[in-house]
């Protein structure tokens, strides 16, 4: 009895084993805490099983399909014989399974107690799982998110979310994607490469509406060139489906038909009926409200990941998880603001951004306190070799540091590393300009943009 009771008491009890939850647990045991990690489905959560990882596997197959179509231009003769969806899925599932096994092994080897089942918060220090009460001196809520829909728009049959799209065993002839945000444009990109006739419906005035205006313009141009159709600025009204497919109607009466409809209108927090409100935690439209140090204001209860309002990204979840573990340990960790978290959209062409957009910077610092510089990838040797176009846009405070970097182009996602150091370390363009970038790389575009912004463009 005593033993069992001990096993149910932890320094830190984490509810949810996704990116945010497991990062909390890993950092916490490093710091010497005992940790219980409660997970009702699979360790790794959305990102590993239904999000980041499987989508990026699809995007790589899509990239190879694009290559197969245009290798001839590069002297590599290839006949493209089509996509084998079951092989694509075997590859994707193999990647997920490998990472899942690795994560389970890691969690186990670190001595984290994994508690299987659905947990419910009870008071300030207790979570009940399958009738057993577990206590934690500290509790971290990390229950994540689910694919939202719109009021009256029911998921089912030919109306699907990313969850279903990730396990499809066939390639539709045509598809409508509702929502031109990150998840929407990534699926549109994959499907187009797989030969699907794709149309994106976005109610806001443009695709990827959160991005800098220059990025938006470039993405829309690139998607048009790829033959990805889109309708922006008119909201969705309703959908009908029959055995042939779906018919979508917009509020202006315009209709679109396709074999299926992917609903990608955002993700809602998983917080209902989990005892959060009863414990006195403040929810706003389902999201858990915390202070800037991720404390809920109740007892020793913290929240991390997609349930906390802000950008819903796996690495923000990691960061918050690490932060909270260090906060509990009294290490006084540094806050990384949402605006300074790197964001990559892995469609073709890729988008990578960190910091303020030009518009955001002007709102923050004043219209005449912001300078920008755009460098066109047409001037970059490696990008020409890869056959891609795009831009790098750097936003600085006038006579001040770089506050935003926005990039688009094939493979440009990987440039986010240098960009985020520049923005997070508040570097001046001159700091970057005095360093030479390796030739010939896409990375040089960052060097050229900063040289230009420092008033001494090299190739321009």
């Amino acid at each position, binding site marked *: 009895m005593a033993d069992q009771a001990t096993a149910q008491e932890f320094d830190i009890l984490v509810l949810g084993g996704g990116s945010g939850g497991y990062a909390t647990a890993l950092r916490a045991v490093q710091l010497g805490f005992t940790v219980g990690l409660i997970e009702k489905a699979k360790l790794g959560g959305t990102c590993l099983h239904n999000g980041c990882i499987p989508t990026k596997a699809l995007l790589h197959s899509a990239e190879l399909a694009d290559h197969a179509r245009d290798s001839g231009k590069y002297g590599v003769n290839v006949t493209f014989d089509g996509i084998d969806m079951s092989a694509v899925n075997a590859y994707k599932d193999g990647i997920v399974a490998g990472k899942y096994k690795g994560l389970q092994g890691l969690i186990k080897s670190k001595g984290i107690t994994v508690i299987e089942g659905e947990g419910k918060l009870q008071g300030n220090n207790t979570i009940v799982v399958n009738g057993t009460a577990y206590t934690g001196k500290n509790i971290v809520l990390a229950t994540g998110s689910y694919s939202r829909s719109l009021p009256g728009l029911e998921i089912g049959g030919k109306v699907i979310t990313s969850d279903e799209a990730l396990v499809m065993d066939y390639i539709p002839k045509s598809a409508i994607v509702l929502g031109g945000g990150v998840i929407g444009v990534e699926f549109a990109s994959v499907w187009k490469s797989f030969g699907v006739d794709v149309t994106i419906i976005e109610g806001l005035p443009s695709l990827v509406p959160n991005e800098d205006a220059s990025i938006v313009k470039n993405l829309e141009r690139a998607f048009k060139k790829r033959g990805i159709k889109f309708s922006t600025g008119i909201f969705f009204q309703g959908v009908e489906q029959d055995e042939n497919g779906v018919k979508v109607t917009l509020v202006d009466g315009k209709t679109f038909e396709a074999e299926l409809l992917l609903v990608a209108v955002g993700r809602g927090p998983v917080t209902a009926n989990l005892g959060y409100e009863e414990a006195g935690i403040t929810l706003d439209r389902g999201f858990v409200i915390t202070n800037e140090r991720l404390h809920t204001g109740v007892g020793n209860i913290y929240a991390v990941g997609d349930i906390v309002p802000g950008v819903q990204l796996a690495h923000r979840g990691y960061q918050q998880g690490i932060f909270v573990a260090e906060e509990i340990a009294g290490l*006084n960790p540094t806050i990384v603001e949402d605006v300074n978290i790197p964001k990559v959209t892995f469609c073709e062409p890729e988008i990578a951004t960190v910091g303020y957009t030009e518009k955001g910077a002007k709102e923050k610092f004043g219209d005449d306190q912001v300078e920008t510089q755009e460098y066109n990838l047409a001037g970059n040797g490696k990008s020409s070799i890869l056959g891609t176009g795009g831009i790098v846009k750097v936003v600085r405070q006038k006579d001040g*540091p770089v506050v935003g970097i926005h990039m688009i182009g094939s493979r440009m996602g990987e440039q986010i590393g240098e960009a985020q*150091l520049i923005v997070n*370390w*508040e*570097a*001046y363009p001159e*700091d970057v300009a005095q360093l030479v970038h390796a030739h010939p790389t896409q990375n040089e575009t960052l060097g050229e943009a900063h040289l230009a912004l420092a008033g001494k463009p090299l190739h321009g």
Partner: protein
Amino acid sequence: RPRSTPPVRKLARDLGIDLQMVTGTGPAGLITRADVQNFVDAAAAGTPAVP
């Protein structure tokens, strides 16, 4: 080691300034670029900031 960001440390080094002697005014005593610049200006102005 005085707290600052890498580019600020690099700037200080390029200017030949020892960060130990600069007082940080940023969050939690972080030495900002302005702190380094002010230190240089003070030194240039003949203020006995540099012993």
